[in-house]
């Protein structure tokens, strides 16, 4: 590569790899790497580096720290020159990057080591790079490699409508290939695995990514006759999306309107038996209305009703899922808003009954009866409670009766043994007394 001349009349060897070809990043390969693969955007890369100024003054070195430096490529975590330069490297490659201030720390400099408007020189060795772990638990259950970088910053959020192309492969066989639109949070309705849906919330428009899914992230692939928890791969392109409105961007009236829309959708999901998804929608209603500050009395009333209905329906969803603890929690939140809410008292009672907390269950059912003496379900449940209490007491009685009987038998046995030992000892003593004469 021909040397590049600088304004300071210092000749810098290498190729101009800056996108604008303005001499901002000059790369010189010191040692060639191996293979053809280069790191992709969002990959985690592992390097060693030595940073110097143009006059050779060293300002930083990972080698001196005896510790490789790692970062996620293409995310702006490091200076621009690095995001651009490291992306051109192969495993095992050592290169020198000469970075103009515009691609480094610019007019501000950085700390005490790097003055303003300073050109920096880095000698970088690339050891390895791996896909980005997108999973919440950081257990590598969703690993992404971005094959084509997307546009801008915007990413789909929960409730966004997305249009995607996807291709799922298992043991090199394609089991799922389609282009479709769906709503984030409701992907299960269209057999989208959980891991794919989660990954889409981290993607930008026109991004093409390869996803490797395993364990819990593969939930949903069993619909394609693939054993659960089996690692699969998906190629996904996010063609387009429309974000759901963010809470911060809505005024109070819009939040109220959205809450109504959510309630309707949650009801549809509930009817379809998708209780977890319905709970998420109801929870969102709570988030929307929590900080809303309505001025008109009508709006205030509407908001209160929506909050109460959301909590009450959440409780019902948990009851359907047999998650009694969460159901009780939701009922209690609803009862804070309306202490005389018959439905929630009854549901809480049902949960207590299922958990064998009979006294608490009775109290709740009695409260329901006080509010509505004609509530026959409450009356039936009270009777059920009483029957269960009776049965429980009977069981306990039997259990303790058995224990005491066993203990009594054991005592008798031991007493009998003790008596036998005593008799034998007495006999021995008697013999001694009769035989000993001196």
């Amino acid at each position, binding site marked *: 590569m021909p040397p590049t001349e600088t304004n300071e009349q210092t000749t810098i060897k290498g190729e101009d790899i800056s996108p604008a070809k303005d001499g901002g990043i000059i790369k010189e390969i010191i040692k060639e790497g191996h293979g053809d693969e280069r790191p992709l955007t969002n990959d985690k890369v592992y390097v060693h580096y030595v940073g110097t100024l143009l006059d050779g003054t060293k300002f930083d070195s990972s080698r001196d720290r005896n510790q490789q430096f790692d970062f996620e490529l293409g995310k702006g975590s490091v200076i621009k020159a690095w995001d651009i330069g490291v992306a051109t490297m192969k495993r095992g490659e050592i290169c020198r990057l000469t970075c103009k201030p515009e691609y480094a720390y610019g007019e501000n400099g950085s700390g005490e080591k790097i003055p303003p408007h300073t050109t920096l020189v880095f000698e970088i060795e690339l050891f390895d790079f791996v896909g980005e772990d997108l999973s919440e638990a950081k257990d590598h259950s969703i690993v992404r490699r971005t094959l084509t970088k997307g546009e801008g910053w915007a990413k789909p959020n929960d409730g966004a409508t997305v249009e995607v192309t996807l291709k799922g492969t298992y043991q090199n066989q394609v089991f799922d290939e389609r282009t479709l639109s769906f709503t984030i949070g409701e992907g299960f309705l269209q057999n989208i695995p959980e891991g794919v849906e989660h990954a889409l919330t981290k993607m930008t428009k026109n991004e093409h990514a390869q996803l490797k899914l395993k364990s819990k992230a593969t939930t949903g692939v069993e619909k394609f006759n693939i054993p659960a928890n089996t690692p699969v791969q998906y190629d996904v392109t996010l063609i387009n999306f429309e974000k759901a409105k963010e809470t911060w*961007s809505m005024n109070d009236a819009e939040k109220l309107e959205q809450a109504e829309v959510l309630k309707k959708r949650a009801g549809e999901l509930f009817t379809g038996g998708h209780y977890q998804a319905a709970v998420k929608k109801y929870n969102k209603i709570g988030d929307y209305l929590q900080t809303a500050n309505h001025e008109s009395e009508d709006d205030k009333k509407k908001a209160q009703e929506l909050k109460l209905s959301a909590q009450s329906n959440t409780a019902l969803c948990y009851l359907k899922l047999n998650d009694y603890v969460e159901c009780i929690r939701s009922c209690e939140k609803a009862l804070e808003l309306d202490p005389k809410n018959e439905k929630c008292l009854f549901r809480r009672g049902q949960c207590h009954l299922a958990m064998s907390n009979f006294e608490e269950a009775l109290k709740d059912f009695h409260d329901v009866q006080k509010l509505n003496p004609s509530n026959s379900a409450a009356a039936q449940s009270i009777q059920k409670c009483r029957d269960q209490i009776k049965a429980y007491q009977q069981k306990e009685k039997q259990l303790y009766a058995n224990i005491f009987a066993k203990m009594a038998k054991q005592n008798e046995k031991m007493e009998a043994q003790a008596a036998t030992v005593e008799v034998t000892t007495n006999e021995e003593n008697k013999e001694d007394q009769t035989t000993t004469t001196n």
Partner: protein
Amino acid sequence: MLNSDCNPASSTLTDLNLSIVKEISTLIDNSDFNEARDYLTSLSEQQIYDNTWDLCTYLFELLERPSDKLCNEYEIYSEDTLTHVAQYGNPREMLIIMLEQSDKFISDKAFAFHIKLFFIILKRLPLKASIITYIDDILSLLKCHLTTVELPKITNDFAGKDLLVFNHDYRVNKLLKLTQLYVDFICQLRDYFSTTPTINIVPILGKYLISVLQNPLSSLSYEPIDSQESSSFTLIRPLLDCLFTLNPNPLQFIDNKEDQSVFIYLVLTKKKYFSLLPCVYSPFFYLILSIPIIQQLSNDREQVMLTEKACVLVSTVCSWLRPNSEFNENSLNNNDLHTLIDTLKTCMVQSPARQYAPLTIGAYRSLFRSFDHFGRYTFLRQQIAKTSCNEDSYRTFLCSLLKDEFLYDYRSLSSEIYKGPSLFQLLDRLCNLPNGVESDLLEIYDCLCSTLNFIRFIGLIDKRGVNRTLLWTERLNRLNETFLKPLRKSIDLARAHYKLEIRNRKEDNKPEPMDTEILVDNKLLSMPSKQEQMETLHSAVTKFDILDCILSALTETFGGDL
């Protein structure tokens, strides 16, 4: 029932254990401390090993026994003998007893002594992975003692001297001394286990150092006073130094930012430690890293020391952003930036620590300036759109930024953002009476003044004959009909109402019956005197007159068009 214990060997052992302790306790009760010491040291290592449990139980109890004498011989004896037992006894048994007796762990001397014993014991435990669990338990126990230290309070409105007094309070010094012991212990562990590569205790040591910074050390101030380094910061330097020896890039310890906020604040705002970080991270990286920390630290504004840290951190990271080129309008799709803006707004408007308000205003301006020109326009548009009218001071601040941006845009002839519909959109949001002519003008007074002045400013800069903004020809009439005329009417109504109120109060000399009471800490807040009430009413009328003046100036600027 028969005695089920038929094993003669264990009963002999038990008898022997009890006899050793009994012998010692008899000697102690007779104050024969030297003999008791000799007796213990004369026991074989095996005997001490076998009797660890009973000896420790007795000796730890003896350690707490009070004495009338100046020199507590029980304490001296116990310390010596416990050290001896630690060196020769069963380390696991002794460790269990020490961990179980945490509720007796109340004096600072005991704290230091326990550290000494723990170190001896840990060196004698087998080098297996389980040792990390023991270290975890020990560090957790020791940390508990630090968190029980009482600290002085400081008012929200503290000034330099208040902070000096706070920093030198004996309770703060006590906490820092104990922390030093804790850090020294961690350094000892670091050094000891550095020779055993199979046991990696670095993560656990790092975890506890960072956790101590969070609680209880987050309550201290580390900011300089009159350019002098804070004494608290001087005393926690060893802790930070230790962290850097554990991992030369301690940012790698970060996994739960909310529990590590003080650590991140210190590493990013203290030059010495910041310079030790890798010199490749971008200002954007530090900003994104800091945003949840800033939000968390500024959440509870009663905790002044946390707010102080939030303000300093946000000021620092925002000052690193490149002006005009760090962000563009697409960056505003990044929710983290909105979180930061909201947090800054809260700190600016509601922070009780007045001396840090300038820091947050400066940070806001740095953040704003880091956007390119169109990014700044979008920023303002979004902020004005989502800020309700009752956030008067913030809207006024936005208006001032808008004015500067307009001027900059107008003067740079190439850029033409603030003209036509893009300008009018902003004006529509600002020129708004929330309740029409019945709006409470005093509630939105500051923003009203700023908005009217801004409109006048446009008219003065962009004269009728030039009209680059198109305001003269395409918006003035609408502005007049939808905003200025209703505003005039509103002012007249409000003025009349207040003047009537003044007249009524002047004429009626009877005290007003109060229909509301305000209680603060169960004490009745005294209502303003009649004179104060009158002054408030007059002041309101004055404000309406000022609005009138501004409107007149506006009319003058725009000639007969308004």
